[in-house]
């Protein structure tokens, strides 16, 4: 190891979920992770372990990642039983090895949910989230080029609420952390984000109904208000979003808007 690293090298033991493909049963496999710098990110640590696996002719550990800056939502690992690991408000790619101690055992597992089937090792298929968005997580009216910043006045509180919920990167940590594998926090963040803005109003009820029904259809569980999702969320989405989703959904069901909208557009 280069002498330029600030902290002393760490020796760790990894317990990693290995699964060859969707049909494979899969199992936990133990790997040594020696000479790990505390300055490495968690994913760099996995890269290092993978290089060694490749050198010794083994299959590297598959895991999802893209931006490695905590903004894309690609990475997602259950680390020692916590979604994205022990640091609050931090994605796995932004977690650093200094959060661990020399000699630690680290358990690394994929997100577990019926709606997120494992593709390989630690990679799961999060297409269910895309389909929830496709069901209504958008504004269909063409809005043209951006208008002047204050052309459409929006109360500060509404803008803040929309912004807080727009912070969701769709990583799936909420589903992973929830004992019911519920996608309520994700779906609620999208519904609350668009529902807080004037542009989101015309489709607000239809959106809530379609997205909630899609969420159920994908096989996610329901909300029991354990609060684990809020704790796990790297972007600090609040449970309050779920209240908003329930209100919008109940209102939409009570007024049975969806049929009407279809009739209009027919």
């Amino acid at each position, binding site marked *: 190891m280069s002498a330029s690293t600030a902290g002393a090298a760490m020796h760790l033991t990894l317990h990693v979920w290995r699964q060859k493909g969707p049909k494979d049963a899969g199992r936990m496999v133990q790997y040594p992770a020696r000479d790990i710098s505390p300055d490495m990110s968690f994913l760099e640590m996995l890269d290092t372990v993978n290089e060694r696996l490749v050198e010794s002719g083994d299959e590297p550990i598959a895991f999802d990642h893209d931006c490695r800056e905590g903004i894309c939502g690609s990475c997602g690992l*259950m680390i020692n039983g916590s979604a994205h690991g022990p640091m609050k408000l931090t994605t796995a790619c932004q977690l650093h090895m200094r959060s661990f101690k020399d000699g630690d055992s680290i358990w690394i597992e994929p997100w577990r949910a019926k709606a997120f089937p494992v593709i390989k090792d630690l990679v799961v298929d999060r297409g269910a989230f895309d389909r929830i968005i496709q069901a209504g997580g958008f504004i269909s009216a063409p809005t043209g080029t951006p208008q002047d910043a204050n052309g459409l006045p929006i109360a500060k509180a509404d803008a803040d609420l929309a912004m807080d919920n727009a912070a969701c990167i769709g990583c799936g940590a909420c589903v992973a952390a929830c004992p019911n594998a519920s996608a309520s926090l994700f779906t609620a963040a999208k519904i609350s984000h668009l529902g807080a803005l004037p542009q989101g109003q015309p489709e607000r009820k239809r959106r809530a109904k379609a997205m909630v029904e899609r969420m159920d259809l994908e096989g996610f569980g329901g909300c029991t208000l354990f609060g684990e999702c809020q704790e796990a969320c790297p972007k600090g989405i609040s449970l309050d979003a779920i209240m908003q989703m329930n209100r919008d959904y109940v209102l939409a069901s009570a007024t049975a808007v969806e049929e009407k909208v279809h009739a209009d557009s027919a």
Partner: protein
Amino acid sequence: MSALRRFWASTIGKKVVMAVTGLLLVLFLIGHMLGNLQMFVGADAMNRYAALIKSTGELLWVARAGLLAAAVLHIVSAVQLTMINRAARPADYAKREPAVSTIASRTMRVGGVVLAAFIVFHIGHFTVGTFHPAFSHTGVYGNVILGFRSPWVVLFYVIAMAVLGLHLFHGAWSGVRTLGLAKPSPDPLHRKVALWIAIAVWAGFTAIPVAVFLEILR
């Protein structure tokens, strides 16, 4: 009808039914607990209160039917949601400990089963009299005193009321949120209200069997 069906088919729809029926039962429990505390006023007060309720005739049966319907809907939605939630996580983690969820939230299901068993026993005990050693249709005060002679019965009531307190602490909080009635806040008022409702209902109900057991009431 189809709109109602669709609502009931969704996880939020079932949860709303569970919340509405649960909160109705909470209201009933607060009234029931306050009424029962007349045991501490005296035998006359308690028996008069019981006679007053019985004198309402049909109204009493309407209330009973409402409570039964609420309990059945509550249990049916709880069972269905539990099955959906279990199915959503077919494979569990090798290593996973709850980070923030309360014991109350994690014991809702098993606690609910205990409460269902308790409700059956309790109605057989003090309403119908099947599980009572010397049941009288007019002497409610005496029924309670004699009914709590057995330390096993007292123990069962004490345990069931502790379970009820936990169920209420999560339920009263969660129900208000399910219905979207609370103000967004990181330290919400309804959490404290739920705590005090849970403590009051637990303490009020527990006081009676314990007082009889300690022969404070006789």
